[in-house]
């Protein structure tokens, strides 16, 4: 299990493809040394909408402490994502993967899924779904990862 986790974190070198005309690539390996809150979401997913204010909060309060919130949109249509973002503003980084390549690598089993990656680039927690009650645990896990030495 551990080896698989490490393997997967090496796999994070894989790039998140943007559907934008000028493909904007995000390499998660370039975020090494930082704690990454990697979220997979889609516009049609109601719990994803619930998670956005929480992720905004994380970004605002812990962004300067070495946390990167990166939310990967998995809508097939970019327009749907744009409509969602117009209603639900996001202050954190958004990447687009309309083909669903990346969730395959992280074996996403529910929407949304939050993957917590530590400063060494290892996947430490995978959290499927989102409820208001999950906030406390997620926050505590993120803070614990931030306290670890790079």
């Amino acid at each position, binding site marked *: 299990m551990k080896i698989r986790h490490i393997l997967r974190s090496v796999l994070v070198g894989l790039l998140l493809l943007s559907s934008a005309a000028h493909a904007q690539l995000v390499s998660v390996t370039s975020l090494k040394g930082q704690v990454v809150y990697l979220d*997979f979401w*889609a*516009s*049609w*997913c109601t719990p994803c909408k619930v998670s956005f204010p929480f992720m905004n909060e994380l970004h605002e309060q812990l962004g300067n402490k070495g946390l990167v919130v990166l939310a990967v949109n*998995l*809508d*097939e249509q970019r327009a*749907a994502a744009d409509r969602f973002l117009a209603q639900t503003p996001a202050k954190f980084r958004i990447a687009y993967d309309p083909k*669903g390549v990346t*969730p*395959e690598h992280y074996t*996403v*089993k*529910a*929407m949304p*899924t939050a993957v917590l990656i530590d400063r060494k680039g290892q996947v430490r927690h995978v959290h499927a779904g989102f409820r208001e009650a999950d906030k406390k645990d997620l926050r505590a896990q993120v803070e614990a990862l931030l306290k670890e030495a790079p």
Partner: protein
Amino acid sequence: MKPSVAVRPRLLRTLFLGLLMFGPAFALSGCVTLEPVKPWQKGNLARSDMAFDADALESKMAEHVYVSKESHYGGNGVGGGGCGCN
């Protein structure tokens, strides 16, 4: 050389019968390999017009009344009285 001529039709018939019996099984096995829908591919399924019931509240009420009348069929919980009000 003579026997081979006699064997041929029998072989063909066996093959044909085999195909007749197991062909559908092979054809159906193709369906098994259909990939399940991934969680992130459920955008269209999540649309409200894709739901089985047009109105969740209405169908719930209808079912409630139905169960109270037809509870002897079972399978839907406990039935109440005749008015459908409990």
